[in-house]
């Protein structure tokens, strides 16, 4: 378990953190995810990569954590307002740092869009794997990512950055 943990805990943490936007909760997620793995190792059928399995569990746990947080009155927007202390995209553009503005806009995407962008770009998951993790049809994976990217372009445009697409 230590080896499995050592290999994958950072990936699980980062995926969880991007979803819940709270380091403390993201750290709690890690132990919950790997404890589930410990308890359910026998159910793993080996049809998909271990990371796909781990990320699917992480997503499920993260959504549960978000629901609990809403129950206590701290919704996503409020959480954003609390944690978002750095420059907004417009200010970043003034600093002439397009890359930084892009990161800022990636952070500003909705939870659904963040997760699909991260799964495809950072976790390098295929269409089929993303469909398995998120629990949506493969065609929806492709269209959701397209609209996530279009939303990203809109945010960048609002921040004064034109990239020639769309």
């Amino acid at each position: 378990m230590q080896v499995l943990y050592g290999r994958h805990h950072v990936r699980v943490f980062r995926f969880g953190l991007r979803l819940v936007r709270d380091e403390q909760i993201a750290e709690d997620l890690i132990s919950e995810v790997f404890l589930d793995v410990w308890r359910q190792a026998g159910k793993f059928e080996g049809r998909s990569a271990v990371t796909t399995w781990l990320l699917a569990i992480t997503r499920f746990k993260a959504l549960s954590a978000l629901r609990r947080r809403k129950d206590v009155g701290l919704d996503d927007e409020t959480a954003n307002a609390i944690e978002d202390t750095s420059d907004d995209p417009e200010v970043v553009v003034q600093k002439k740092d397009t890359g930084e503005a892009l990161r800022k806009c990636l952070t500003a995407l909705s939870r659904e869009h963040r997760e699909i962008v991260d799964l495809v770009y950072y976790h390098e998951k295929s269409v089929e794997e993303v469909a398995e993790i998120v629990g949506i049809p493969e065609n929806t994976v492709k269209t959701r990512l397209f609209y996530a990217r279009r939303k990203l372009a809109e945010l960048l445009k609002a921040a004064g950055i034109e990239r020639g697409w769309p």
Partner: protein
Amino acid sequence: MMAASKKMLDQEPSEIEMLLPFHAAGTLNARDARRVEEALAGDSGLALQYAVIREEYAETIGLNESLGAPSARAMQKLFAAIDAEPVRKPSLSVSLSARVSEFFARLSPRTLAWSASVGAVALLLQAGVIGAVLMKNQTASFQTASLSMNEPSSGPITRDLGVSAAPPRALVRFAPEARIADITALLDNYQASIIDGAKGGMFRLQFKAMGKDEAANLLKKLQGEKIVSLAVATP
């Protein structure tokens, strides 16, 4: 060639456009990758969009990498929770080994033909198990390579058992009917780790440091194992 990119925001994206991010991440199958390459070569609008995607791809990686890593608290919490799980017999550490072995055994059919490719996966899985068991059972210092399942592999396992004599090694071929769980148990019993394999179906095992006579006896015993079809000493 008909332009694959769409000029209007309200138009539905083409199939190729939707595949571009996956192409950038290298997760398309060969057929789709070829389709995308061909479309990119003949459509400057699509090529521009692909350049934008490459930028998004790089920044998404940069953003995630900047998130850092969790504190040790997460690991402490996890293993405290595991320790608090109902006690299993014969012991938690052995039970850990058994559970992880069972977990790994389910990654592939119950009976494995020891082809080179399967063996390479098995090497990593068993190395992981041995690492985990050693962590629980031994006080000597050691290092384990990363565990990889269906993932790119990392370097071989190394460990320092705190004994100055050179540890004996053997080239071993496992019987075709050997299961991962059986091999894991054997490695566990012999306190051995796989340090190389599987060239021609042979694995190089390393044992704990011991004298010559003891090493010769160990090799003889290993040759008598049901799941071992060949075992020879090697430097």
